[in-house]
Each structure stands twice: as C-alpha cells, then as structure tokens.
C-alpha cells in the first residue's frame, strides 16, 4: 500500500503496472484517474490550485486504504494525489486497486474515491474569467460517501 502527495505529474500506466507486476494471484486491477476539466459548474476554468494539510493528508489517505482492505479482499492499493497549480486536462489523482476478483476491486476503488472526496484534506481554488474562487463541496459527494453505509 502506497500513498504519495506530490506536485509533479505521475505516469499512471507505470504505477498501474507496478500494482500487478510479479503477482500471479491478481486477476483484476481497477484504476481511477481524476483530471482537471476546463468547465466546472458553468464556469470556464483556466487554472486550478490545490492546497492540502501536510501530515493529516497522508494519514487520511492511509486510513482510507486500510478501511478498503478491511472491507474487501484486495491485494495492493495506491493513491497518488497532486497539489499545487494545475491546468485543464492535467492529472490530479490516481487511485488503483488490485485483487483476485473484479467485483471487490471495483467496489474498493470507488469506495476509496468517495472517501477521498469527503475526508482527505485537499481544497481546490479555481481561476476563472471572473477571478479566483474556492470550490464548494458538493452534496452529491456526501451522498456518494453515504452509500457505503459507515459512520463518520
């Protein structure tokens, strides 16, 4: 299990391949890549700045992986999240999970993203033609998290 917070871009293909290389018991790898869109809630986005809480972020992501491992039979898990200033179409986050069977790998990967969206201390600020503003948290993300039916 690996957690990385970094300003640099990542090579998703390389990272995903590391998760199943030399593992002959892995039948399924599910991966999520999050990217900067040039439109958000109707605003044109020219740039995105990601702030985080060093120290807490790493613990929060490690805890999300541990919760996924406790719930599903998965072999490896990786989260990479970028911080700093990003442009549209830049990669923001990679969550990838490997395991014997696809159902558990899909569930664990989506669970990790839903938890990351509502628990990991990252904040986005968008630059638009109207100026800069902090992105508001979405109730749809809270709803996505609630589906997994665990306490806060």
């Amino acid at each position, binding site marked *: 299990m690996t957690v990385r917070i970094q300003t640099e871009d990542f090579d998703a293909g390389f990272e995903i391949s590391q998760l199943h290389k030399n593992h002959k018991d892995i039948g399924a790898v599910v991966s999520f890549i999050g990217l900067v869109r040039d439109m958000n809630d109707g605003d044109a986005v020219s740039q995105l700045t990601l702030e985080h809480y060093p120290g807490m972020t790493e613990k929060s992501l490690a805890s999300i992986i541990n919760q996924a491992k406790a719930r599903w039979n998965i072999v490896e898990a990786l989260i990479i*999240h970028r911080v700093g200033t990003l442009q549209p179409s830049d990669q923001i986050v990679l969550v990838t999970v490997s395991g014997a069977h696809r159902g558990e790998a899909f569930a664990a990967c989506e669970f990790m993203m839903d938890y990351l*969206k509502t*628990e*990991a*201390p*990252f*904040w986005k600020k968008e630059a638009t033609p109207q100026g800069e503003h902090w992105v508001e948290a979405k109730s749809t993300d809270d709803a996505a998290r609630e589906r997994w039916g665990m306490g806060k």
Partner: protein
Amino acid sequence: MIIKLFYFARLKETLKYSTEDLNLPDEPMTVLKLKAFLAKRGDVWGEMLMGKLKVRAAINHELVDDNASISNGDEVAFFPPVTGG
C-alpha cells in the same frame, strides 16, 4: 495549556493566519468552545468560525465534531469541507 492551530483554504486566506500557538486557560476545552473563544477576536473571526459557513475541525490530524475535547499540546485545525480528488 498551549495548543497549535492551523487554518486552511478560505479560512487561512480570510483570517490571514495559517498557523499560531495559542495559550488557553487551563479548563476543559472543546472544539465549539475554542471556536467561540476565537470568534471574540472580531468580525471576520466570528463570521468564519461561528457564521453560516461550514467549518470542519481536526485534532491531531483526525476529523472531529464540535464537542471533541482539546488537550494541552494538541494540534487543532480549522478548514472548509474538503474538495480534493
């Protein structure tokens, strides 16, 4: 008691504080009492911590509720709901 405080995102920008060491009276302290204490610093503090904005808190890197207890030496952080991913 002494605690370390951190502010993030909109709170950091508006309060113009990212971190501070705070000396508090030696009496039972909760997140809510700490917010009320800080709100007395003036308008923008009250608006940010006790106003309409949702504020989340962490003690020693764990998300907590308003009624969580704060102890000497704790690291306490205030921030808006998270928006990563």
